[in-house]
């Protein structure tokens, strides 16, 4: 019988309080040290609410992040930060990396330390070992496609971002007790470059551990690639956008996160519908089934995101109850 879980992928919206902390930093009212102290406290509180909601696998909410690229790209040599670019078809914009020379992760990157702080919170709450803390990172295909780089092709950029930045960072994160969560919307968004994505998936697969997340479009056309990630990976797919979860399982994905809670609509989902879907996927042969949000919760107002997180926990409890696991 499959194991059921509830998961949060990606970011959580900034509360009024978190927004104020950022505003103070931008205006220079507080410095980096004070910012880190305040955001650290808010992150700790947020992780507490995830645990309380009953989530088994979650991120720290990415309260320090503007988007999946920033501030990561500020800690990379060879890269400058450019103007705003639309994030796929959302009314949401990110600052794009401009690749001037081969990107390489700076030793001063704070992301590993943030992950360690998150793990300390788990210890404090007494849930270390029972839950998984993930660190979202852009996948190599997604960051390569988002890069502005004159005269560089995407294929080379995939390699360079991987070997210079993502691979070393991933290894440090795993050492620090965090699980990498790769965000790769690009591989389902632009199917015309499928051949390139095959390679990008292989690079990620080489770390043998993590979450691999696609969203905004169905993952069905890339199911063969996702199946190749291996058992070390949980594959998260956007069910709201129409991914056929059964197809994932029959293609060989054993650990699946069902992005069935819509992070792009305030409407609440029906518990019954999610429970049946998760059970069906388990019956199809999945070994581990998570109910999850389909994409970054940052697209929602915070009060609605809070409700959806609690809802995920409720779905999981019902699954556990009804399946007797």
């Amino acid at each position: 019988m499959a194991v059921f879980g509830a998961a949060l992928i990606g970011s959580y919206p900034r509360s009024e309080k978190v927004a104020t902390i950022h505003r103070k930093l931008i205006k220079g009212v507080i410095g980096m040290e004070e910012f880190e102290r305040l955001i650290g406290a808010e992150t700790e509180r947020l992780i507490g609410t995830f645990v309380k909601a009953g989530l088994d696998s979650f991120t720290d909410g990415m309260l320090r992040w503007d988007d999946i690229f920033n501030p990561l790209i500020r800690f990379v040599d060879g890269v400058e930060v450019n103007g705003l670019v639309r994030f796929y078809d959302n009314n949401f914009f990110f600052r794009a990396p401009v690749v001037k020379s081969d990107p390489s992760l700076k030793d001063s990157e704070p992301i590993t330390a943030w992950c360690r702080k998150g793990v300390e919170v788990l210890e404090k709450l007494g849930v270390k070992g029972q839950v998984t803390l993930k660190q979202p990172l852009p996948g190599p295909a997604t960051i390569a496609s988002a890069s502005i780089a004159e005269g560089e092709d995407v294929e080379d950029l995939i390699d360079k971002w991987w070997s210079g930045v993502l691979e070393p960072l991933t290894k440090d994160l795993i050492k620090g007790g965090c699980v990498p969560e790769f965000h790769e919307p690009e591989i389902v968004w632009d199917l015309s470059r499928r051949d390139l994505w095959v390679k990008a998936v292989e690079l990620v697969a080489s770390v043998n551990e993590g979450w691999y997340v696609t969203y905004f479009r169905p993952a069905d056309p890339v199911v063969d690639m996702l199946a190749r990630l291996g058992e070390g990976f949980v594959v998260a797919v956007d069910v709201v956008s129409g991914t056929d979860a059964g197809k994932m399982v029959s293609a060989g994905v054993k650990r699946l996160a069902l992005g069935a809670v819509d992070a792009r609509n305030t409407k609440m989902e029906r518990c019954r519908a999610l429970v049946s879907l998760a059970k069906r996927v388990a019956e199809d042969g999945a070994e581990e089934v998570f109910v999850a949000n389909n994409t970054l919760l940052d697209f929602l107002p915070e009060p609605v995101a809070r409700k959806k997180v609690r809802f995920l926990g409720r779905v999981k409890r019902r699954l556990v109850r009804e399946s007797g696991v």
Partner: protein
Amino acid sequence: MVWRSVELPVLPTTVIGSYPRPKWLREFIAGYRERRYKEEQMREAFDDAVIAVLNDHREAGVDIPSDGEMRRDEMVEYFAERIDGFKFYGPVRVWGNNYFRKPAVVSKLRYKGPMVVDEFLFTRRVTYSEVVKVTITGPYTIADWSFNEYYPSKEDLAFEIARIINREIKALEEAGAIYVQVDEPALTTHPEEIEWAIEAVNEAVKGVNIKVGLHVCYSDYGILRPYYDRLNVSQFALEFANRGFRDLEVLKGLNKELGFGVVDVHSRRVESPEEVAAAIRKVMQYVPPECLFINPDCGLKLLPRRIARQKLRVMVEGTKIVREELKRKGLERVELRKELTCP
């Protein structure tokens, strides 16, 4: 109301809509939110701000001004607050630490009554010009920038909003407005929806007997190009300064009036009149002068007011250079047109 014809100098100059709120107004609004002022005092402050904006437009020499959208915090919020069926759960982030109060549609949308007619009536009362432009956010953009909890599809939602906007435009027409601009910055952002998005805009302007412009900005105009004929508006107001006046090729085959964006609203560098004139000469290779309006790329609200004022002045001065050249060819005046095609 009946349509009346208005004579304008060739290459009429206008604005897209929004203009920086004066600093004192921003402070007053903050005070109003802290309940330090009464509603009536707030309204008076808005009125005074509109007068100040019109004065800036007049001094710059803009032929067709607007009220600078002084009363509107945001282009979708403002309308969602005035239509029944919307709910606000809280802000969502758009980028960095910048937020937008994205509305959610939670029940059937209903027109509660005029939303911007009072704005228009006040502007007309205090303006120096014969014509003012009234802007209204288009149905597709409102639908795209809202959460849809109620309608079976985004398309159903957009058409419902279109019917509401249509009533508003007709109310404006009734009140004597002769120039309305529908703002649709989101129009091309989901190319797979463009077919019905175009029809939603048409639904919003159905049966309207005044001049209607359509403003689309920071978009891939190539996506819009196949639909020039199908859009039942008389003018497209498009942004070109931001793209360095490249992509003018997309204007080939345009059979409507063009509102040509000549100053960049995202840059604080003030253009020179010569740059503006050169851009107008360049666009005249694609659009005849009698079918050209001159405007900034987009609303000016994000600029410091001082820069916004300078940009408008430069826009008018640059236009005047080209007007002199056209005068020698005997072209001095044009008429405000509501026809769907030009020439």
